[in-house]
């Protein structure tokens, strides 16, 4: 595709701004279609499909073990050794499942930026962080050392680090967790990607720093018309910044909808339950108004329950929920995997 080849060509040393301008407006930044992944005979992802349009910020939510991180890694072609993968993953039109290793290398860090949960363990402890950013730039773009250095300095300033020059020379252990995460964001943006995958980017950070990083991500996405897949267990963060929400449970996408509709009328009981348990009650001692909660443990993909995988924990389960795996069906522009979606009215508060 045009976008991929454009990533190889040198551009202005600033590197900043929305990615290659020549990309076709109608190609979504990311299309995952029917992705299944099995490791040692255990199907960890079953028929995962999701789309991220240009400039869109999509939240991928679910409890631990739901497969959201594995989905993110699969997009980058970073699947576990010996995994069997079916379906297709197209980033800016390039199929990541069939791409040659050299193409994958160009895509990772070039077209697709990635931010991980623990920034310090993603950085090389033995190199100054500025040098690490410059290395990424030089790996993907034809630039001199000086140009790459200037680009790295400029990026460090853009992600809100107070003194880019001193940060450039700092080692990861000399920076706080929040600063390291800003460095990771700078590195992910270094080659003007069209897609950013952020896997729990704020979970390891303090709450005041968390708010800064989320705000930064949203403003960067807006400025650069960047598509973002935000993987997190925290639905509250997603509702604040994302345009759409994709919910995963036990290796399946169970729900996909716009944030506004998820908030007003979630179409899957699991999304509803996540919303309810995420509602923060800071009022304190106003009676026992603890939010509705979800009993039981998340289902394991090793022994997935019969029928709807969520039915053993679902407060609205009926005998037919255990009968067959529900298909994911369109509903009001979104999608849901629930046989009862037509009957349930899952508004705010009680159904």
């Amino acid at each position, binding site marked *: 595709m045009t976008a991929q080849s454009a990533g190889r060509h040198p551009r202005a040393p600033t590197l900043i701004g929305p990615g290659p301008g020549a990309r076709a407006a109608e190609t979504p930044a990311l299309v995952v279609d029917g992705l299944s992944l099995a490791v040692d005979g255990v199907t960890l992802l079953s028929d995962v499909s999701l789309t991220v349009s240009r400039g*869109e*910020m999509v939240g991928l939510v679910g*409890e*631990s073990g739901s497969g959201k991180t594995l989905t993110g890694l699969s997009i980058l072609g970073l699947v576990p050794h010996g995994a069997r993968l079916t379906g297709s993953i197209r980033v800016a039109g390039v199929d990541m499942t069939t791409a040659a290793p050299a193409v994958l290398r160009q895509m990772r860090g070039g077209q697709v930026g990635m931010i991980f949960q623990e920034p310090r363990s993603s950085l090389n402890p033995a190199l100054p962080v500025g040098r690490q950013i410059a290395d990424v730039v030089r790996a993907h773009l034809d630039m001199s050392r000086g140009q790459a250095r200037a680009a790295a300095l400029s990026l460090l300033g*853009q*992600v*809100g680090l107070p003194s880019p020059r001193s940060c450039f020379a700092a080692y990861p252990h000399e920076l*706080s*967790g*929040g*600063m390291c995460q800003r460095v990771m964001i700078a590195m992910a943006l270094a080659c003007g990607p069209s897609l950013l995958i952020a896997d729990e980017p704020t979970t390891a950070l*303090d*709450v*005041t*720093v*968390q*708010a*800064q990083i*989320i*705000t930064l991500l*949203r*403003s960067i996405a*807006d400025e650069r018309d960047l598509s973002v897949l935000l993987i997190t*267990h*925290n*639905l*509250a*963060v997603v*509702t*604040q*910044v*994302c*345009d*759409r929400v994709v919910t995963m449970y036990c290796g399946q996408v169970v729900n996909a909808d*716009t*944030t*506004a*509709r998820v*908030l*007003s009328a979630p179409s899957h009981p699991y999304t509803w*339950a*996540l*919303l309810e*348990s*995420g*509602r*923060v*009650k*800071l*009022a*304190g*001692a*106003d009676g026992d108004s*603890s*939010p509705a*909660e*979800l*009993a039981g*443990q998340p289902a394991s993909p090793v022994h997935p329950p019969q029928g709807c995988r969520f039915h053993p924990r679902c407060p609205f389960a009926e005998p037919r929920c255990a009968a067959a795996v529900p298909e994911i069906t369109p509903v009001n*522009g979104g999608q849901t995997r629930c046989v009862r979606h037509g009957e349930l009215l899952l508004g705010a508060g009680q159904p």
Partner: protein
Amino acid sequence: MTASVTPGTGHGAPAVRVSHLRVSYDGRRRPLTAVDDVSFDVGIGETVAVIGESGSGKSTLLRAIAGLAPPASGHVEIAVGGSASGRVQVVFQDADLALDPRQPVWKTIAEPLIPRQLRVPKQFRDTAMDLLREVGLGAEVADRRPHQLSGGQRQRVTIARALAARAVLVLLDEPVSAQDVTLQASLLRLLSSIQRQHGLTYVIVSHDIAAVARVADRVGVMYAAKLVEIGPVSRVLSEPRHPYTQALIDAVPRIADHSAEMPQRVIEGEPPDLSNPPSGCRFRTRCPFATDQCAAEVPVLQACASDDADHQVACHRWQEIAALPHSRLTPQLSQAAARSPANEPGIAFSRTREGQQAARGESGPS
């Protein structure tokens, strides 16, 4: 909420009295004081939560109360009745590391029943099973090893072990932070019901003000080794007096209300380096209300009302801040909103998705 005991400010003997506690780590290159002149009481049967970010000194405070970190000055008095051995139990954050990976969990739970003995006799199995049931785990868990349990189950095992030791005072370090939100509520409810049944006193440290708000009677807020505010949980949350407490509460990610454009106040900067803390008030470097006085004088905890010694705050300007019409959304805020959020110090606005799209001249996705 859960205890009928008067919050521990002077009525009877408190379970824990922390007075002018100072704990230092003297590293060769960067000596630092992690807890600096902290004083508070915890009543019998009460739950006090200490909230703070990483590096605020909250875990060191917990370790000092447990006797695991020697105070440089000041002291911690614990009145637990009878012999102190085992009556103070710590439930650590990482239940994974707190359990013996090679023992079935019933033995781990029974261990405190027979101190100073290497092997756990079989007859203690029944007691261990009772404790397992009490923390909401089934009998099938008893013979499993920690790696076969989920994170939530492991945390329940550590709680059962604290009960086995007949603890009176339980110190909990981030008891629910590692759990999924869906599991936090049931774990917190379990802690409350155990407290009621056994008359336990809890000191909880956490960075998550929202999670502990459900179980705490009183909450203290630590910033850079100092206690900056303490009071009954309902008052601290509804009328936070310290600008840091306000920022901390505002920063909690909330499920956005789709109808309202929710301004989220984002406080810039990060906590100071404790080996070289700022003069005066330690929050002044990030505080939108800081004045010269804040740099010159260290604020001390003072009561927020003359008739109400329970709610205390350490801020020179709390009365002025509280008197502002919308103290949570100050004039500085709207000025900052006009500037770029990323580059300016102080406080900035982030608007919701809809607001930002409107600013970009786009229509919403729906």
